């Protein structure tokens, strides 16, 4: 047990936000009846940051977003924004805007009227409304469709209108609830890039909810990974990929090999594999990315093992190859496409690439 505690200190689950804090989520929990949806969530969101809340369906990510927007009340905990208590304010007083998953455009209003909605209810002068709406529509390239009703434009266009409708109000924080999930793969990739550059341009903090880890990796400054209502790890995409805190994170973000092993007197032992380690004695779980395994060139200091090829899967530039070691351990390695010939080979990896991770306890 002592070794596990040491480990949790090694990989800090909550990285410090880079700039001034905009929104502070403090110990937020949410229950629906007997159902605990969120437990003890604490998270800081910095000004101008692109933070992604990543999680499987049912992980509570949308509920967390709805609590920030004010559509749900937290069962306990507090929200603070720019020094003010946020969770006591009704949604229409929060300087937060939302892009809904299904866009939620008003069907009886034109594109232009939809975008103008927030400024109209705020009773801004007509000339200002006109100008800001025109700018917003221009920014999302929807000027040509200004007079159309939402039912007469495509899903991708509706998505842009929803974005313009939220951004035109110049919120301090924009919430996006899986806004790209209804788009097809090509448009989706294009929108990921556009959305990211738009965010840089306007400098507004985005909290983006998705279940797609690739999307999270491409777009985010930081990723908050939710699992069964608890934060598993909060870190930048590179850090979360390279230094996953838990086995769940390692598996959820990209592919990984999980090696169960033990450290004794500075030697890590996983089946027939062993390497020098400075971890304290005790049982450990290691995450080893497939790209860190390679066909052996006899590199000194690397961990070597003989293995038999089981399956080779083509992934474009690379192949994912499943191999079985002599002791029955199955590993996946990523090699340049077509790089593996023959049935038997020797594979190796650097000891430093075997990242110790915490076991993720079962949760319901």
């Amino acid at each position: 047990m002592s070794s596990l505690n040491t480990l949790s200190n090694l990989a800090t689950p909550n990285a410090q936000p880079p700039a001034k804090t905009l929104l502070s989520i403090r110990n937020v929990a949410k229950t629906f009846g007997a159902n605990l949806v969120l437990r003890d969530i604490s998270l800081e969101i910095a000004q101008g940051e692109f933070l992604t809340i990543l999680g499987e369906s049912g992980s509570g990510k949308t509920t967390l977003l709805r609590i920030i927007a004010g559509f749900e009340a937290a069962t306990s905990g507090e929200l603070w924004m720019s020094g003010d208590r946020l969770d006591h304010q009704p949604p229409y007083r929060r300087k937060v805007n939302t892009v809904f998953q299904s866009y939620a455009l008003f069907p009886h209003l034109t594109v232009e009227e939809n975008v103008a909605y927030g400024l109209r209810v705020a009773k801004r002068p007509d000339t200002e409304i006109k100008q800001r709406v025109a700018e917003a529509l221009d920014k999302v390239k929807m000027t040509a469709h200004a007079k159309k009703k939402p039912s007469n434009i495509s899903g991708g266009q509706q998505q842009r209108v929803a974005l313009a409708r939220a951004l035109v109000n110049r919120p301090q924080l924009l919430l996006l609830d899986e806004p790209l999930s209804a788009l097809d793969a090509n448009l989706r990739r294009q929108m990921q890039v556009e959305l990211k550059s738009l965010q840089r341009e306007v400098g507004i903090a985005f909290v983006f909810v998705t279940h797609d880890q690739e999307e999270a990796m491409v777009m985010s400054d930081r990723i908050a990974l939710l699992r069964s209502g608890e934060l598993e790890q909060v870190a930048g995409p590179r850090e979360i990929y390279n230094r996953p805190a838990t086995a769940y994170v390692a598996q959820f973000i990209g592919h990984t090999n999980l090696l169960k092993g033990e450290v004794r007197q500075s030697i890590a032992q996983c089946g027939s594999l062993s390497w020098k380690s400075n971890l304290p004695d005790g049982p450990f779980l290691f995450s080893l990315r497939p790209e860190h395994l390679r066909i052996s060139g006899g590199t000194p200091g690397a961990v070597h093992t003989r293995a038999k090829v089981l399956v080779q899967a083509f992934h474009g530039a690379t192949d994912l190859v499943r191999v079985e070691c002599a002791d029955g351990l199955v590993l996946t390695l990523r090699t340049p496409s077509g790089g593996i010939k023959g049935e038997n080979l020797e594979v190796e990896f650097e000891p430093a690439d075997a990242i110790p991770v915490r076991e993720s306890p079962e949760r319901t």
Partner: protein
Amino acid sequence: MFSRAYRTIVTVPPLAWVAVFLLVPYALMFCYSFWSVSAAQTIVHSWNFANYQELLEKPVYWQTLLRSMWIAARVMLFSLLLGYPLAYFLSFYAGKRKDLLYQMVIIPLWVSYLVRAYAWKTILGSDGVLNTLLQYVHLTKHPLEFLLYSPFAVVLTLTHIYTPFTILPIYAALEHIPSNLVEASHDLGASPSQTFWKVIFPLSIPGVVAGATFAFVLSLGDFLAPLLLGGPSGIMISNIVVSLFGAAYNWPLGAAISLGMLVIVVTLLFVSERLEKKWSYS
């Protein structure tokens, strides 16, 4: 896809029903409206426009028609004023009691129209429940006469009877508004009342139009409420039709009025359907 026999079995009975009980009577009525009654009280099958001319010339007919429309308009207005808030409450705030309250709106519809009309008679009469109560608490010295046998009584009774008909379509329209539109409105800074006027009400207009049409059309053609509670000042157009087909024995004139009514009602239904379409976005 379906066999010929099957299609015949399914389609012929309803078509026959419509033909025998709708098309034939309308055709007969159409013919009658151009005929006339002789001095000897027989139907003269000669074709002319005399009945329609009489309708336009004698003020009693179009005055009664106007009064009927005025009564129907008031019933429509009051039904909407009562029905909309109730439907709105039911849809947005009733929570767990929604089903129960919905049933309570429906239940009066199972009670016979006649029973409900008579109930108002006992309430509004000069020694009825209301007058007795008012005198008992010394608010009035004598029974209030305008309560019964007046257009007031007719409007009140019809409003009571037809309000559920306005609640149901409005409720259905409100239930169809996606909750995320209401959330989006709040999200964009609109207060609850702004959200109501800018999002909820516009999207419920098809239901309002349908409910208004129900209340107006059903009231316009009503003859029992004016018969039981209207008195001489509360007579409506249907009462004239009834008497023309009965004691007055002037079927041709009665048919002409009925056809005129039919044209008015069909026009209203047509306009109402166009309005509903114009304001619906599903």
